[in-house]
């Protein structure tokens, strides 16, 4: 198990009953970001999965951050979680 903090923002917190920060223990076999996303879908999100995912990855319009860095800078789905990591899923806003 690896303990990380998950953050949901930009409206995505609605998928977790309004909770923006959630500490979780991720099973060892789900330690890559790619697996973590599937694990979140299966264990934390109970409905409207299409607001979070599309074709086994996060849907377009969600920025994924690994400790405040764009996950593109960290290897995206290949990144291996470290204890204490903060992983954020932020929906892009368009209103003005």
């Amino acid at each position, binding site marked *: 198990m690896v303990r990380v903090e998950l953050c949901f*923002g*930009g*409206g995505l917190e609605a998928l977790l009953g309004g909770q*923006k920060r959630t500490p979780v223990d991720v099973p060892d076999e789900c330690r890559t970001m790619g697996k973590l996303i599937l694990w979140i879908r299966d264990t934390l999100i109970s409905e409207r999965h*299409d*607001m979070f995912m*599309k074709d086994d990855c996060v*849907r*377009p*319009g969600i*920025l994924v*951050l690994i400790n*405040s*860095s*764009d996950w*593109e*800078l960290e290897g995206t789905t290949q990144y291996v979680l470290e204890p204490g990591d903060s992983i*954020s899923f*932020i*929906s*892009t*806003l*368009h*209103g*003005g």
Partner: protein
Amino acid sequence: MEQPQQETVERYSRQMVLGCFGVESQRCLSRARVLVVGAGGLGCPAAMYLAGAGVGALCLLDRHGDCVERSNLHRQIAYNDAVVGVDKAEALAQFVRNLNPRCDVQRLDSKQHGVGICAANAEQMVQGFDVVLDCTDNVMSRYVLSDACALQKVPLVSGAAIGTDGQLSVYCSSGAKDDDTPCYRCVHPVAPPQHCVGSCDSAGVLGPVPGIIGTLQAIEAIKVICGASFVGAEPLRRKMLLFDAMDCSFRTMKLRARNSACIACSSNSTSTQNRITRVNEYDYDAFLMGDSAGDSAAAAPAIAPESRGPLPSRIEALEFSRISNESTLLVDVRPNTHFQMCHLPGAMNVPLTDLSSAERVRDIQHEMDRRSRGEAQSSTLYIICRRGNDSQKAARKLSETGLFHRVVDIMGGLSAWSDQVDPTFPKY
């Protein structure tokens, strides 16, 4: 160096005496040409502060014929009750002209009703500006504007706000060799599915939130314009600010660099396929539909193949007002916060999203029985929403349960009720 004129000193002294800013930065501002796209919650404070700061030319662009509404006033602070109904870009231009008569304020116009920035005009519109501010409120404008700025090498200060959240970043390289600023498309190569895009109109927005972000956009624009003369100031390039009003947190995240294969901003034009060479030649509708074409089809009205109950029908608001009485059941399917704000007497609130719950549907059945005193088998269930879209979906859904004798939805929703039946019922 020549000394600034008396009026310049008197008007801008408070920022000119700032050690990091100084006379030279003020000169940069006075020579700058700035375009603000969108005259709403972000555009108002952004334009106001930029005019106050003394930019040389300030151009404003919004949808032609988009007028100030009363529901704008809590956040679009350049307007007041007296300008409700006035064209927004015009009203904002007037406000900033009064604020600083030395600023050359112009309103750009697409000349076409309902059209603001669009693929056909974007490149032409952004050409020759030192910085452009994206204060728009929709996905299409954001891509169009970013693509135009990427091609014309104009920095883009992009702000967005909804609910209690705000976001801010500076996109698009100025063309300098070592500038690895991404464009909007580098960060968002695929458009979001349409059903995941919220608007202030439907989701709501706390007034000061766009105020904060629009104000920060003015700061970023000033930093971009002044460059090195604003000593130590760094525009928010390759970073994004995330503002959350709920805990008053400002988080800055690191963004990816420019994508060398980006179809909008890559400098290597030969190796990139499908590169956008002209914004007006790119098919934005197809791009926005993207793979999400299926989603939008699902959202559009469609008759379910295995419809068990009778097909729902529709009725005019005026007609409904004539036939309804105390035994009529009207279900209002708007979100509960909307219902609490205003509703028709006797209406029962069951939000559209709750209709997938069998328990809530049973609640409707029970209420139907109670009101019709056992005559539910021959009674009609009426459905209403804000504008008549969700009520159609709800009516279809309830019809398909086969539990109701007849389901009818009210065309145009409460908005039509206000127009046809009761003008004192709030339109929002």
